[in-house]
């Protein structure tokens, strides 16, 4: 089964650690890079964007915003899926993320299972 290379943009270390472990344990996703701010995310995308299959973005970062990352990603020739993880999955956020090119938006507290299922399903196609 092909592994999916993922970049995670998340600034909370506890979540990050758990996310990586969970993804690698339950799905085919392999986390190749993690960044905690917009600038680094943009750098990764421009440099390694072609290699990535999945970008997981937290909306609220300490430096910069996940929305900014999405916007940048929209401007690049990326094949990777863009998935937003957030604590504030309101209609407005969903709309905004969608318009910025995100494939899915998941609420960090209520939709983690859906997120994991989505990641699992990615590996199956």
């Amino acid at each position, binding site marked *: 089964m092909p592994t999916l290379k993922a970049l995670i943009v998340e600034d*909370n*270390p*506890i*979540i990050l*650690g*758990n*996310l990586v*472990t*969970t993804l690698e*344990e*339950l799905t085919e996703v392999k986390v190749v890079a993690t960044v905690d701010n917009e600038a680094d995310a943009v750098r990764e995308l421009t440099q390694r964007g072609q290699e990535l299959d999945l970008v997981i973005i937290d*909306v*609220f970062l300490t430096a910069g*915003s996940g929305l900014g990352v999405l916007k940048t990603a929209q401007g690049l020739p990326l094949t990777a899926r863009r998935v937003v993880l957030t*604590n*504030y999955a*309101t*209609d*407005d*956020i969903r709309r905004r993320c969608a318009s910025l090119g995100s494939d899915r938006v998941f609420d*960090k*507290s*209520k939709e*983690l*299972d859906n997120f*994991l299922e989505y990641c699992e399903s990615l590996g199956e196609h």
Partner: protein
Amino acid sequence: MPVVLALGISIMVVNESTYRHSHSTLSAGIALTDARVQATETLQLLTAASLYAHAYILSGSTDEAVHYREVVKQMHAVKQKAFDLIAQVDSAQTISVDTVEALVSEEIRDTDEWVDLVARGQPTTARTDAISTRSRERRDQLREEFALILEKAAEIQQGARFSLYNALSMSRLAVHLLALAAVLSMFVFQRQLRQSDQLLIEERLNLSDRVKERTAELTEMATHLVHAREDERARLAREMHDEMGGLHTSMKLEFARLRRVPNMPANAPELLASIEARLNESIALKRRIIENLRPSALDQLGLMPALEILCSDMESVLGQRVQADLAPVSSSKAADLTLYRIAQEALTNIGKYAGGASVQVRLAQTGSEIQLTVRDNGKGFNPAQIGHGRHGLVGMRMRLESHGGQLSIQSAPGQGTTIVAKLPAQAPTAQT
């Protein structure tokens, strides 16, 4: 005040003493004139008496004797009058009328003697006596003496007149001076009044300045307290969100992994589900607390999205429809927070008191004015009787005013409530 009193008393004293002086001088003058008349009258009567005596000597008629005695009596009366009048002029009693008295007595003694002699039947002796010039000489002397006395009296009167002139001059001077003093004191009083008025004005200005200072101080302090509170809330919210939030998400992730572990004991899934349910409740609680403390959506996304989230959250809390009609507005972060808090407070109050069916929240900007409206169709209240729960909105009014805005509350019992917050649009604070 005492100056005025002193002036008044002085004027009255001067006036009274001048009056008394004039009065007595005038009376004395009149008395003197009368005294002259009486003196003349006395001499005339004396001469008349002498004539009657002579007539009696010549005729022997008792009529003449009778006339004689009448005239003598008259003369005495008039003489006394003259002396009294002189005494009136001569209050110091420097003039002696003894000489006149003595001469008159001598004359009357002689004429009495003649009359006696004739009555006793000795007219010849009487005639011899009467022919002598003694009588005439005596009358001349009498005239001179009277004149002397009257002259002395006149001197006294003249003295009195001079002193009256002096007194009148002094009185005139005194009254002029007193009038001048009165006018001067009036000016002084005027100036004092003006000065004290000036002091009052200065005092009032001073107080007004101090009040302004104090109000500014208090406003500053109140604003500072508001900021401190908001800062603290923000800090708490951030801690909960970052640290507690991280723990919660991790637990959810681990639960996800745990659920996929094979060969679990029979009762495990049920317990797992139960624990996860608790975790979900805990997450929901944490979110509610954070949103109440510091709506992170406000900082991260802006006023409009934050209000949207607030309205949808409040729908389930209130059990009413909360219709949000929001448009983007141009405001600073501080103003955003104030407006958010107003909406929050208004919605909380609706939950506590209104009990209606639906709520409308409207945010819009017309020209350079931002307007936030929260309207409910609940119980309503009488804005004049602001009770306990409304204190929150009164505090909001102050915050709004510090941004140059205003808050208006319209309500009536049974007619719902409309809260309108207006403030001028501002340049949005640069996002970090």
